[in-house]
Protein backbone atom coordinates (compact mmCIF):
# COMPACT_ATOMS: atom_id res chain seq x y z
CA UNK A 1 0.00 0.00 0.00
CA UNK A 2 2.80 2.33 0.90
CA UNK A 3 4.52 1.15 -2.24
CA UNK A 4 1.49 2.19 -4.24
CA UNK A 5 1.67 5.73 -2.88
CA UNK A 6 5.38 5.80 -3.54
CA UNK A 7 4.71 4.94 -7.15
CA UNK A 8 1.93 7.52 -7.41
CA UNK A 9 4.25 10.16 -6.07
CA UNK A 10 6.97 8.99 -8.41
CA UNK A 11 9.41 8.30 -5.63
CA UNK A 12 11.05 5.15 -4.36
CA UNK A 13 11.87 1.94 -6.15
CA UNK A 14 9.66 -0.79 -7.48
CA UNK A 15 7.58 -1.96 -4.47
CA UNK A 16 8.94 -5.47 -4.09
CA UNK A 17 6.51 -6.32 -1.27
CA UNK A 18 3.53 -6.26 -3.63
CA UNK A 19 5.51 -8.31 -6.11
CA UNK A 20 6.22 -10.85 -3.35
CA UNK A 21 2.55 -10.99 -2.46
CA UNK A 22 1.45 -11.57 -6.06
CA UNK A 23 4.07 -14.24 -6.64
CA UNK A 24 3.21 -16.04 -3.40
CA UNK A 25 -0.51 -15.97 -4.10
CA UNK A 26 0.11 -17.44 -7.53
CA UNK A 27 2.46 -20.18 -6.42
CA UNK A 28 0.42 -21.17 -3.36
CA UNK A 29 -2.72 -21.78 -5.39
CA UNK A 30 -0.72 -24.35 -7.34
CA UNK A 31 1.06 -25.73 -4.26
CA UNK A 32 -2.21 -26.31 -2.43
CA UNK A 33 -3.71 -28.49 -5.18
CA UNK A 34 -0.35 -30.02 -6.06
CA UNK A 35 -0.66 -28.97 -9.69
CA UNK A 36 2.27 -26.91 -10.97
CA UNK A 37 1.57 -24.15 -13.53
CA UNK A 38 3.06 -26.15 -16.40
CA UNK A 39 0.84 -29.18 -15.66
CA UNK A 40 -2.18 -26.92 -15.48
CA UNK A 41 -1.29 -25.61 -18.92
CA UNK A 42 -1.14 -29.16 -20.26
CA UNK A 43 -4.51 -29.92 -18.67
CA UNK A 44 -6.08 -26.85 -20.28
CA UNK A 45 -4.77 -27.86 -23.69
CA UNK A 46 -6.16 -31.35 -23.26
CA UNK A 47 -9.57 -30.04 -22.20
CA UNK A 48 -9.66 -27.77 -25.24
CA UNK A 49 -8.60 -30.59 -27.55
CA UNK A 50 -11.51 -32.75 -26.30
CA UNK A 51 -14.05 -29.96 -26.67
CA UNK A 52 -12.75 -29.08 -30.13
CA UNK A 53 -13.57 -32.64 -31.27
CA UNK A 54 -17.25 -31.78 -30.86
CA UNK A 55 -17.59 -28.04 -31.37
CA UNK A 56 -15.50 -25.29 -32.82
CA UNK A 57 -14.00 -23.22 -30.05
CA UNK A 58 -13.16 -19.52 -30.28
CA UNK A 59 -9.65 -20.20 -29.03
CA UNK A 60 -8.75 -16.50 -28.68
CA UNK A 61 -11.47 -16.00 -26.07
CA UNK A 62 -10.91 -19.11 -23.97
CA UNK A 63 -10.35 -18.43 -20.28
CA UNK A 64 -9.56 -21.34 -17.97
CA UNK A 65 -8.24 -20.38 -14.54
CA UNK A 66 -7.91 -21.69 -11.02
CA UNK A 67 -9.93 -19.88 -8.42
CA UNK A 68 -9.37 -20.08 -4.70
CA UNK A 69 -11.87 -18.63 -2.24
CA UNK A 70 -10.08 -19.91 0.82
CA UNK A 71 -7.49 -22.58 1.53
CA UNK A 72 -9.75 -25.54 0.84
CA UNK A 73 -12.09 -24.15 -1.76
CA UNK A 74 -10.40 -24.49 -5.09
CA UNK A 75 -12.15 -24.67 -8.41
CA UNK A 76 -11.37 -24.54 -12.06
CA UNK A 77 -13.36 -21.82 -13.78
CA UNK A 78 -13.60 -22.25 -17.53
CA UNK A 79 -15.14 -19.94 -20.06
CA UNK A 80 -14.94 -21.58 -23.44
CA UNK A 81 -16.93 -19.70 -26.07
CA UNK A 82 -17.79 -21.52 -29.32
CA UNK A 83 -16.62 -20.14 -32.58
CA UNK A 84 -19.07 -17.74 -34.30
CA UNK A 85 -19.04 -19.85 -37.49
CA UNK A 86 -20.43 -22.73 -35.45
CA UNK A 87 -23.41 -23.56 -37.77
CA UNK A 88 -21.36 -23.82 -40.88
CA UNK A 89 -18.70 -25.87 -39.19
CA UNK A 90 -21.20 -28.18 -37.57
CA UNK A 91 -22.73 -29.23 -40.93
CA UNK A 92 -19.47 -30.71 -42.03
CA UNK A 93 -18.78 -32.39 -38.73
CA UNK A 94 -18.56 -36.21 -39.05
CA UNK A 95 -20.88 -37.08 -36.17
CA UNK A 96 -23.58 -34.76 -37.45
CA UNK A 97 -23.08 -36.14 -40.95
CA UNK A 98 -23.66 -39.66 -39.65
CA UNK A 99 -26.91 -38.68 -38.07
CA UNK A 100 -28.07 -37.10 -41.31
CA UNK A 101 -27.10 -40.21 -43.27
CA UNK A 102 -29.09 -42.49 -40.98
CA UNK A 103 -32.10 -40.33 -41.39
CA UNK A 104 -31.81 -40.49 -45.18
CA UNK A 105 -31.41 -44.27 -45.12
CA UNK A 106 -34.59 -44.63 -43.11
CA UNK A 107 -36.46 -42.50 -45.56
CA UNK A 108 -35.02 -44.49 -48.44
CA UNK A 109 -36.39 -47.80 -47.20
CA UNK A 110 -39.63 -47.21 -49.10
CA UNK A 111 -37.78 -46.08 -52.19
CA UNK A 112 -35.69 -49.22 -52.05
CA UNK A 113 -38.82 -51.28 -52.77
CA UNK A 114 -39.17 -49.38 -56.05
CA UNK A 115 -35.91 -50.95 -57.12
CA UNK A 116 -34.64 -47.66 -58.42
CA UNK A 117 -31.03 -48.19 -59.46
CA UNK A 118 -29.97 -44.60 -58.91
CA UNK A 119 -31.34 -44.61 -55.43
CA UNK A 120 -29.79 -48.01 -54.71
CA UNK A 121 -26.45 -46.62 -55.80
CA UNK A 122 -26.86 -43.60 -53.54
CA UNK A 123 -27.86 -45.82 -50.67
CA UNK A 124 -24.85 -48.11 -51.09
CA UNK A 125 -22.48 -45.18 -51.07
CA UNK A 126 -24.08 -43.90 -47.90
CA UNK A 127 -23.89 -47.28 -46.24
CA UNK A 128 -20.23 -47.39 -47.10
CA UNK A 129 -19.76 -44.00 -45.50
CA UNK A 130 -21.58 -45.19 -42.43
CA UNK A 131 -19.48 -48.29 -42.21
CA UNK A 132 -16.48 -46.09 -41.95
CA UNK A 133 -18.09 -44.17 -39.14
CA UNK A 134 -20.17 -46.83 -37.41
CA UNK A 135 -19.68 -50.54 -38.11
CA UNK A 136 -23.10 -51.50 -36.72
CA UNK A 137 -24.80 -50.30 -39.85
CA UNK A 138 -22.84 -52.73 -42.01
CA UNK A 139 -25.66 -55.35 -42.20
CA UNK A 140 -28.14 -52.82 -43.48
CA UNK A 141 -27.07 -53.35 -47.04
CA UNK A 142 -28.34 -56.98 -47.11
CA UNK A 143 -31.99 -56.30 -46.20
Amino acid at each position, binding site marked *: MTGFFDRMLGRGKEPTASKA*KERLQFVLVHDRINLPPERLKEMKEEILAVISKYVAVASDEVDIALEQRDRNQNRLIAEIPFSKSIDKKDDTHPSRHTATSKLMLDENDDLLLDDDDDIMETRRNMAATDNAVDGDLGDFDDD
Partner: protein
Amino acid sequence: MGAKVITVTSGKGGVGKTTTTANLGVSLARLNKRVVVIDADIGLRNLDVVMGLENRIVYDLVDVVEGRSKLRQAMIKHKQFPDLYLIPAAQTRDKTAVSPSDMVTICNKLREEFDFVLIDSPAGIERGFRNAIAPADEVLIVTNPEVSAVRDADRIIGLIEAENKGPARLILNRVKMEMIKRGEMLSAEDVTDILAISIIGIVPEDENVIPASNSGVPVTLNENSRAGVAFRNIARRLNGEKVDFMSLDNSGGIFQRLTRLFAGGQGNE
Protein backbone atom coordinates in the same frame (compact mmCIF):
# COMPACT_ATOMS: atom_id res chain seq x y z
CA MET B 1 -7.54 -28.62 34.96
CA GLY B 2 -5.19 -30.17 32.42
CA ALA B 3 -2.39 -28.38 30.63
CA LYS B 4 -2.77 -27.00 27.17
CA VAL B 5 -0.20 -28.49 24.80
CA ILE B 6 1.03 -25.94 22.26
CA THR B 7 3.43 -26.82 19.46
CA VAL B 8 5.59 -24.14 17.85
CA THR B 9 6.51 -25.04 14.28
CA SER B 10 7.37 -23.39 10.96
CA GLY B 11 8.45 -25.60 8.08
CA LYS B 12 11.45 -23.47 7.28
CA GLY B 13 14.41 -23.41 9.64
CA GLY B 14 15.88 -20.26 11.13
CA VAL B 15 12.67 -18.25 11.43
CA GLY B 16 12.76 -18.14 15.25
CA LYS B 17 10.91 -21.23 16.55
CA THR B 18 13.34 -21.85 19.41
CA THR B 19 13.54 -18.17 20.34
CA THR B 20 9.74 -18.03 20.31
CA THR B 21 9.32 -21.19 22.41
CA ALA B 22 11.86 -20.00 25.00
CA ASN B 23 10.30 -16.55 25.24
CA LEU B 24 6.72 -17.82 25.44
CA GLY B 25 7.78 -20.31 28.11
CA VAL B 26 9.39 -17.58 30.21
CA SER B 27 6.53 -15.14 29.57
CA LEU B 28 3.92 -17.68 30.68
CA ALA B 29 6.01 -18.47 33.78
CA ARG B 30 6.04 -14.73 34.53
CA LEU B 31 2.25 -14.90 34.49
CA ASN B 32 2.58 -17.48 37.30
CA LYS B 33 1.72 -20.36 35.04
CA ARG B 34 3.24 -23.81 35.49
CA VAL B 35 5.08 -24.48 32.26
CA VAL B 36 7.13 -27.24 30.62
CA VAL B 37 9.00 -26.58 27.38
CA ILE B 38 10.07 -29.61 25.35
CA ASP B 39 12.81 -29.56 22.75
CA ALA B 40 11.58 -32.00 20.08
CA ASP B 41 14.49 -31.39 17.74
CA ILE B 42 16.31 -34.67 18.43
CA GLY B 43 19.96 -34.49 17.35
CA LEU B 44 19.98 -30.68 17.07
CA ARG B 45 19.41 -29.64 20.66
CA ASN B 46 19.14 -25.85 21.09
CA LEU B 47 16.37 -24.80 23.42
CA ASP B 48 18.69 -25.49 26.38
CA VAL B 49 21.32 -22.93 25.31
CA VAL B 50 18.75 -20.28 24.40
CA MET B 51 17.28 -20.67 27.89
CA GLY B 52 20.66 -20.84 29.62
CA LEU B 53 20.13 -24.35 31.00
CA GLU B 54 22.70 -26.30 28.98
CA ASN B 55 24.96 -27.01 31.96
CA ARG B 56 22.26 -28.73 33.96
CA ILE B 57 21.33 -31.51 31.57
CA VAL B 58 21.69 -35.05 32.84
CA TYR B 59 18.87 -36.91 31.09
CA ASP B 60 16.96 -36.06 27.92
CA LEU B 61 13.76 -36.88 26.05
CA VAL B 62 15.16 -40.07 24.51
CA ASP B 63 16.34 -41.30 27.93
CA VAL B 64 12.73 -40.96 29.12
CA VAL B 65 11.32 -42.71 26.05
CA GLU B 66 13.80 -45.59 26.38
CA GLY B 67 13.29 -45.97 30.12
CA ARG B 68 16.73 -44.86 31.34
CA SER B 69 15.25 -42.02 33.35
CA LYS B 70 11.97 -41.04 34.89
CA LEU B 71 10.16 -38.09 33.37
CA ARG B 72 10.87 -36.01 36.49
CA GLN B 73 14.60 -36.65 36.24
CA ALA B 74 14.74 -35.24 32.69
CA MET B 75 12.90 -32.05 33.67
CA ILE B 76 15.34 -29.19 34.29
CA LYS B 77 14.08 -26.45 36.55
CA HIS B 78 14.65 -22.89 35.33
CA LYS B 79 17.05 -20.78 37.41
CA GLN B 80 14.67 -17.90 37.88
CA PHE B 81 11.20 -19.46 37.63
CA PRO B 82 10.60 -22.52 39.83
CA ASP B 83 7.47 -23.49 37.89
CA LEU B 84 9.25 -23.51 34.52
CA TYR B 85 10.91 -26.72 33.31
CA LEU B 86 12.79 -27.81 30.21
CA ILE B 87 12.88 -31.32 28.78
CA PRO B 88 15.91 -31.27 26.47
CA ALA B 89 16.32 -33.14 23.21
CA ALA B 90 18.95 -35.85 22.85
CA GLN B 91 21.99 -34.58 21.04
CA THR B 92 23.43 -37.84 19.76
CA ARG B 93 20.34 -39.56 18.37
CA ASP B 94 17.95 -38.92 15.48
CA LYS B 95 14.21 -38.31 15.17
CA THR B 96 13.37 -42.00 14.90
CA ALA B 97 14.34 -42.50 18.57
CA VAL B 98 10.96 -40.92 19.47
CA SER B 99 7.53 -41.73 18.04
CA PRO B 100 4.38 -39.59 17.90
CA SER B 101 2.73 -41.88 20.46
CA ASP B 102 5.72 -41.45 22.83
CA MET B 103 5.12 -37.71 22.65
CA VAL B 104 1.41 -38.15 23.38
CA THR B 105 2.21 -40.36 26.39
CA ILE B 106 4.73 -37.90 27.84
CA CYS B 107 2.44 -34.89 27.35
CA ASN B 108 -0.50 -36.71 28.90
CA LYS B 109 1.58 -37.26 32.05
CA LEU B 110 2.54 -33.57 32.12
CA ARG B 111 -1.03 -32.37 31.60
CA GLU B 112 -1.98 -33.29 35.16
CA GLU B 113 0.58 -31.02 36.83
CA PHE B 114 1.05 -28.08 34.49
CA ASP B 115 -0.86 -25.28 32.80
CA PHE B 116 1.11 -25.17 29.55
CA VAL B 117 3.33 -27.60 27.69
CA LEU B 118 5.21 -25.91 24.83
CA ILE B 119 6.87 -28.06 22.19
CA ASP B 120 9.67 -26.67 20.04
CA SER B 121 9.33 -28.49 16.71
CA PRO B 122 12.23 -29.16 14.38
CA ALA B 123 12.17 -27.62 10.91
CA GLY B 124 10.87 -29.73 8.06
CA ILE B 125 7.80 -31.88 7.53
CA GLU B 126 9.13 -35.31 8.44
CA ARG B 127 9.16 -37.49 11.53
CA GLY B 128 10.37 -34.79 13.92
CA PHE B 129 7.53 -32.50 12.88
CA ARG B 130 5.01 -35.36 13.23
CA ASN B 131 6.35 -36.08 16.72
CA ALA B 132 5.98 -32.44 17.68
CA ILE B 133 2.39 -31.99 16.54
CA ALA B 134 1.04 -35.39 17.66
CA PRO B 135 0.15 -34.26 21.21
CA ALA B 136 -0.76 -30.65 20.29
CA ASP B 137 -4.01 -29.03 21.36
CA GLU B 138 -2.99 -25.93 19.47
CA VAL B 139 -0.32 -25.15 16.87
CA LEU B 140 1.54 -21.88 16.46
CA ILE B 141 3.31 -21.26 13.16
CA VAL B 142 6.29 -18.95 13.19
CA THR B 143 7.20 -17.27 9.94
CA ASN B 144 9.11 -14.26 8.64
CA PRO B 145 7.85 -11.77 6.05
CA GLU B 146 9.88 -13.44 3.29
CA VAL B 147 8.69 -15.49 0.33
CA SER B 148 10.50 -18.70 1.33
CA ALA B 149 9.30 -18.66 4.94
CA VAL B 150 5.71 -17.80 3.95
CA ARG B 151 5.57 -20.55 1.34
CA ASP B 152 6.83 -23.13 3.83
CA ALA B 153 4.35 -21.87 6.42
CA ASP B 154 1.56 -22.49 3.91
CA ARG B 155 2.68 -26.07 3.41
CA ILE B 156 2.74 -26.61 7.18
CA ILE B 157 -0.73 -25.12 7.58
CA GLY B 158 -2.02 -27.64 5.03
CA LEU B 159 -0.38 -30.54 6.89
CA ILE B 160 -1.76 -29.36 10.22
CA GLU B 161 -5.26 -29.17 8.78
CA ALA B 162 -4.83 -32.65 7.31
CA GLU B 163 -3.93 -33.91 10.81
CA ASN B 164 -7.03 -32.20 12.25
CA LYS B 165 -4.83 -30.01 14.45
CA GLY B 166 -6.05 -26.75 12.97
CA PRO B 167 -6.75 -23.97 12.78
CA ALA B 168 -3.17 -22.98 13.53
CA ARG B 169 -2.35 -19.40 14.51
CA LEU B 170 0.46 -17.33 13.11
CA ILE B 171 3.38 -15.52 14.71
CA LEU B 172 5.05 -13.15 12.29
CA ASN B 173 8.61 -12.75 13.49
CA ARG B 174 11.40 -10.32 12.55
CA VAL B 175 9.15 -7.63 11.14
CA LYS B 176 10.89 -4.44 10.03
CA MET B 177 8.43 -1.56 10.02
CA GLU B 178 10.78 0.72 8.11
CA MET B 179 10.96 -1.75 5.24
CA ILE B 180 7.19 -2.26 5.20
CA LYS B 181 6.76 1.51 4.94
CA ARG B 182 9.05 1.56 1.94
CA GLY B 183 7.06 -1.25 0.33
CA GLU B 184 10.02 -3.60 0.58
CA MET B 185 8.64 -6.08 3.08
CA LEU B 186 5.36 -8.00 3.32
CA SER B 187 3.18 -6.58 6.08
CA ALA B 188 1.30 -8.65 8.67
CA GLU B 189 -1.84 -7.98 6.68
CA ASP B 190 -0.21 -9.20 3.45
CA VAL B 191 0.95 -12.41 5.12
CA THR B 192 -2.39 -13.22 6.75
CA ASP B 193 -4.11 -12.46 3.42
CA ILE B 194 -1.85 -14.92 1.67
CA LEU B 195 -2.02 -17.68 4.30
CA ALA B 196 -5.67 -17.18 5.27
CA ILE B 197 -5.12 -17.89 8.97
CA SER B 198 -5.45 -15.72 12.04
CA ILE B 199 -2.48 -14.06 13.68
CA ILE B 200 -1.60 -14.19 17.38
CA GLY B 201 1.55 -12.10 17.35
CA ILE B 202 3.71 -9.69 15.41
CA VAL B 203 7.30 -9.57 16.67
CA PRO B 204 9.51 -6.73 15.50
CA GLU B 205 13.11 -7.25 14.46
CA ASP B 206 15.09 -6.38 17.54
CA GLU B 207 18.84 -6.22 18.09
CA ASN B 208 18.33 -7.30 21.69
CA VAL B 209 17.41 -10.84 20.63
CA ILE B 210 20.86 -12.11 19.71
CA PRO B 211 22.61 -10.72 22.84
CA ALA B 212 19.83 -12.36 24.87
CA SER B 213 20.54 -15.72 23.24
CA ASN B 214 24.26 -15.14 23.68
CA SER B 215 23.81 -14.93 27.42
CA GLY B 216 21.04 -17.53 27.71
CA VAL B 217 18.50 -15.05 29.07
CA PRO B 218 15.40 -14.89 26.85
CA VAL B 219 14.80 -11.38 25.50
CA THR B 220 11.39 -11.11 27.12
CA LEU B 221 13.20 -10.62 30.45
CA ASN B 222 14.67 -7.41 29.02
CA GLU B 223 12.06 -4.78 29.82
CA ASN B 224 13.35 -2.44 27.11
CA SER B 225 13.05 -4.93 24.28
CA ARG B 226 10.20 -4.43 21.83
CA ALA B 227 10.42 -8.07 20.76
CA GLY B 228 10.20 -8.94 24.45
CA VAL B 229 6.95 -6.98 24.77
CA ALA B 230 5.57 -8.73 21.69
CA PHE B 231 6.34 -12.16 23.20
CA ARG B 232 4.74 -11.19 26.51
CA ASN B 233 1.64 -10.10 24.61
CA ILE B 234 1.45 -13.43 22.81
CA ALA B 235 1.73 -15.25 26.15
CA ARG B 236 -1.14 -13.19 27.54
CA ARG B 237 -3.24 -13.99 24.46
CA LEU B 238 -2.47 -17.71 24.92
CA ASN B 239 -3.64 -17.27 28.48
CA GLY B 240 -6.98 -15.98 27.21
CA GLU B 241 -6.48 -12.25 27.68
CA LYS B 242 -7.42 -9.69 25.09
CA VAL B 243 -4.36 -7.66 24.21
CA ASP B 244 -4.15 -5.06 21.46
CA PHE B 245 -1.41 -5.51 18.92
CA MET B 246 1.43 -3.17 19.80
CA SER B 247 2.21 -0.39 17.42
CA LEU B 248 5.31 -1.20 15.45
CA ASP B 249 5.29 2.28 14.09
CA ASN B 250 6.60 4.90 16.48
CA SER B 251 4.52 7.58 14.77
CA GLY B 252 1.39 5.54 15.60
CA GLY B 253 0.16 5.82 12.05
CA ILE B 254 -1.90 3.89 9.60
CA PHE B 255 -0.26 0.53 10.30
CA GLN B 256 -1.49 0.49 13.85
CA ARG B 257 -5.01 1.28 12.78
CA LEU B 258 -4.89 -1.34 10.04
CA THR B 259 -3.52 -3.92 12.44
CA ARG B 260 -6.23 -3.22 14.96
CA LEU B 261 -8.87 -3.32 12.25
CA PHE B 262 -7.46 -6.57 11.00
CA ALA B 263 -7.21 -8.15 14.43
CA GLY B 264 -10.84 -7.23 15.03
CA GLY B 265 -11.80 -8.84 11.76
CA GLN B 266 -10.05 -12.05 12.71
CA GLY B 267 -12.02 -12.22 15.91
CA ASN B 268 -9.16 -13.46 18.06
CA GLU B 269 -8.37 -10.25 19.82
